[in-house]
């Protein structure tokens, strides 16, 4: 069983079968207020180094040191995109502006509005004025070479559940829904577990599992036993 901290501070206890692979954990959350509405992507620390190397070569950076973390502002050389990254010892959180870096007073408002708390279990982003802002759209996802597992709270995930009744298993309800694919992969993966995404709803969490086909052509594909492991083995609770 893995216990993670969701980007909004919730405690997520997840039991994932071994067939889903060894994951890296990511997260997303949104903080919205009168002047600010921003998405934050949480990832294991280190990925921000790719921003000036690959995503925006030659990007300028400006580092603001804070206690326990740095805040880095990257801006593309042609000012076509920019982002702000909170870099802690274990995780990082990025928000993209999709244009030139905002004015200094907006940046400082944003830096003052977001409290970043990092821990080995996950990074938490909280608003410093909770009465003026809302935080929603929070999800935690586990990416491995074999699967992508996305976890939401029951409140967040309820709207994404199908209208019809699913398979009832130990107090959980399980559905499968078609993965949206192009025609070529659709015909290649027809009849395999890869053409479905599996939705598991527990009392407190909604979990969606998508299996990833192996990269090499000769590698063994997931079979019915993997599906059975997902249906029986995915147990997730969301507290907070």
């Amino acid at each position, binding site marked *: 069983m893995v216990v993670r901290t969701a980007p909004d501070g919730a405690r997520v206890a997840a039991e994932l079968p071994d067939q889903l692979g060894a994951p890296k954990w990511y997260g997303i959350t949104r903080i919205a207020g009168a002047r600010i509405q921003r998405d934050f992507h949480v990832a294991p620390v280190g990925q921000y180094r790719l921003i000036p190397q690959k995503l925006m070569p030659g990007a300028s950076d400006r580092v*603001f*040191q804070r206690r*326990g973390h*740095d805040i880095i502002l990257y801006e593309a050389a042609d000012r076509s995109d920019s982002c702000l990254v909170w870099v802690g*010892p274990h995780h990082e959180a990025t928000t993209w502006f999709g244009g030139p870096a905002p004015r200094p*007073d907006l940046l400082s408002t944003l*830096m*003052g509005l977001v409290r970043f708390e990092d821990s080995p279990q996950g990074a938490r982003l909280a608003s410093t004025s909770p009465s003026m802002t809302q935080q929603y759209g929070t999800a935690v996802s586990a990416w491995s070479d074999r699967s992508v597992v996305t976890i939401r709270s029951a409140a967040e995930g309820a709207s994404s559940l199908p209208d019809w009744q699913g398979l009832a298993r130990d107090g959980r309800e399980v559905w499968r829904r078609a993965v949206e694919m192009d025609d070529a992969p659709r015909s290649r993966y027809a009849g395999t577990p890869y053409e479905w995404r599996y939705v598991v709803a527990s009392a407190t969490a909604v979990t969606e599992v998508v299996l990833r086909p192996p990269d090499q052509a000769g590698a063994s594909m997931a079979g019915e036993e993997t599906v059975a492991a997902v249906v029986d083995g995915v147990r997730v609770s969301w507290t907070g």
Partner: protein
Amino acid sequence: MAISVSTALALLALAVAVFALLAVGGVYGRLKQAERALADMTFGEIASSMPEELRPRDGAAATVVLTLDGECPTCHQLAAAVDAAVSDGVMTGLRVVRMFATEESRGRHTPSDLVETYADPDLWTAVYEGYTPTVSIVDRNGRVVHRRFVYPDTDLGALVRDLRARAGVTDHSASLLVPQETS
């Protein structure tokens, strides 16, 4: 020419209204000024001043503070790497300090004659940023000019070589060291 009471009242009211308008404008201006000052404060660096004990001494340009824990293996590797660097003379011109929270965690590390060691909860609170091991560089004003979290896969050799540049030490002994490193 005498003015009637109602005209006098109207003029008085006008004067009061003008004064009120000026006052509101003045307050608005001061508010904007305060907002800008506040923005500068939050946008700028958080000025965290390090205690006197951790500032550079005896002509050193800066202090390198190693925030260490007793148990983490990386802490032991970092302490050993910095110790070796000090004995090789790579850290000339820098004051190097090991920082522990408790005597117990200090006891888990090999004692060093070359590096100063503190085991002091108050000092620890001033430096600790929620992660060990951490390398911080403190300048003469007690300002943290560089802080770095050290991971198991961090290249400690490169980190140690980087410290002088980060601390702003640019004397000739630095260039003299290059042949020593390559040999």
